């Protein structure tokens, strides 16, 4: 497993804009073990080797308890490794030098309830040594970036979850960091809020920032990220570019409405797999089976042909396959996000 990971990591090309640049975040054999009662131990993260390159969106995915947040906390110096080490911009995570280049947005950020959005940004700006006109201008710029200019005076206690999330992102960005870390950035947001946050993350990359996103929402990560690392029970299962992890599958996907059991059985005999759990049956046709033969059978059965497309593997299927081969339990993916 480890050698596969290393090989994959080595073969993965760096993002085109900064192929020669040093990694912004590095984890080397990073391990975190918690001591529990009665002498028991819990390994939250085990020998993680990871490099985040400049100007990329890097996703760490995995179910609850896989070690995503632990990784972020270690990178931020909030907790300390049991063994191994990590660096941010080549500095120790607890060094103020590393903090100057980092912004962090926790899951469901909770700010001082009596402050409004502008005051929150200014508070964190002051912590970063900003002041006067520079801070005012920066606050204005960030409020515009996250779409909160018109609602700048709304106090946090009256803000919606989406608004707090935006302010959290602005607070993370106040020191104009090179690396922005986000823990479940779309947690609890409605589809519109989710879309906006995703757009903001992509916008950050276009501004030359590096974004490290932790999420258990695989579909979102697949959509946004350049590279991903799949964690499960503290172990790194896969890491690499999304398009490489999603191995090309030479199959077609046929969606059929009103497919009878007879049709499913008949196509099964031809070597066509079926997923009948959905409302419309989904058939995966391997390249070895002529697609026109399959379509003829469907037409003859009287079922309604809805669509024919090239099958595209998703991060979810990759994840499920990875945890299965790793003897892990894919049911763990069912968490609070469901």
């Amino acid at each position, binding site marked *: 497993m480890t050698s596969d990971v290393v090989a994959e990591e080595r073969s993965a090309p760096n993002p085109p804009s900064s192929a020669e640049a040093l990694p912004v975040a590095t984890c080397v054999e990073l391990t975190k073990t918690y001591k529990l009662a009665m002498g028991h131990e819990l390994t939250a993260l085990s020998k993680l080797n990871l490099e985040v390159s400049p100007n990329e969106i890097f996703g760490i995915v995995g179910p609850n308890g896989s070690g995503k947040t632990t990784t972020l906390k270690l990178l*931020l110096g*909030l907790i300390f490794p049991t063994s191994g080490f990590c660096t941010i911009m080549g500095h120790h995570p607890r060094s*103020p030098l590393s*903090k100057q280049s980092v912004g*962090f947005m926790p899951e469901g950020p909770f700010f001082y309830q*009596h402050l409004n959005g502008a005051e929150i940004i200014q508070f*964190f700006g002051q912590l*970063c040594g900003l002041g006067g006109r520079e801070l005012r201008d920066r606050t204005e710029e960030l409020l515009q970036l996250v779409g909160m200019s018109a609602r700048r005076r709304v106090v946090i206690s009256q803000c919606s979850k989406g608004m707090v999330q935006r302010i959290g992102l602005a607070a993370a960005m106040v*020191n104009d960091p090179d690396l922005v*870390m986000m823990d479940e950035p779309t947690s609890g947001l409605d589809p519109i809020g989710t879309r906006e946050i995703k757009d903001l993350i992509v916008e950050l990359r276009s501004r030359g920032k590096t974004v490290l996103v932790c999420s258990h929402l695989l579909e979102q990560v697949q959509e946004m990220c350049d590279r991903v690392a799949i964690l499960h029970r503290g172990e790194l299962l896969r890491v690499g570019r999304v398009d490489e992890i999603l191995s090309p599958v030479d199959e077609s996907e046929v969606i059929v409405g009103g497919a009878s059991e007879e049709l499913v059985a008949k196509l099964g005999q031809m070597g066509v797999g079926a997923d009948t759990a959905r409302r419309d049956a989904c058939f995966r046709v391997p390249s070895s089976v002529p697609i026109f033969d399959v379509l003829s059978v469907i037409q003859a059965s009287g079922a309604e042909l809805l669509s024919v497309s090239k099958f595209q593997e998703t991060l979810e299927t990759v994840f499920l396959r990875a945890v299965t081969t790793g003897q892990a339990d894919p049911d763990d993916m069912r968490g609070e996000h469901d």
Partner: protein
Amino acid sequence: MASATIREAKRMRALHIILIFAIVAIGAVRVFKAFSPGEEEKFIIDTGINLIRLFGLLTGLMLGAMLISTEIERKTIHVIMSKPISRGQFLLGKFIGAAAIIVGSAVIMVLVFMAAYTLEFHRFNVEVLKAAIVIPFELLLFMSIVTFVSTFAGPIFVIVFSVSAWVLGHVNDFLAVIPKESTLTAVVLNVVGAVIPHFDIFDLTRPLMVGETVPMELVWKPIAYAIGWVAIVQAFAYIVFNEREF
């Protein structure tokens, strides 16, 4: 960080209520003289100074309960610690903010008490002021202990430990002289006597109760003692907080 702590504290209604209640109680301290006919002045001095102490402690406990544990509970500390601010700066800022609130409140209570005393007896008594002026420093030391405990414990433990330290500190001299029945008791009491600050040195009302003046030495020594202890306790708080995981 200090200004944020002050701003947060200023929004706490409980602190407003304590301060208003304290001002009313201390300002109306003359009503207590009825409890001690013939000893009115002594009773007013004793009651007034102890009210300042009591309300100061309540303020300190209210602040202490929210000082650091709330930041951790709400995870605000995750965002703060991701900024270029050291743990020492964070802790010092928190302490300075809380100290400013508690000392400020104590100074207001001392002024109210001195005004009430002067109005009651139609004279300004500098000896009473000497006894009262050390109270803000006692509360500063108390706040320091509260800050220290809050670096590793939750609100309930902060309250229990800090109040216990304050009570033991007030009977520290007594602990030294009580008969020790076993070696273990002697060791425990000696350790407590050594690690708990002597809060009893801030009680300057004894000379006033027997009509004596308060020597300046009894004023500046507790002040210097408080400042020294605050430095030590804050150093320990930093050591603990620096190793804490969030």
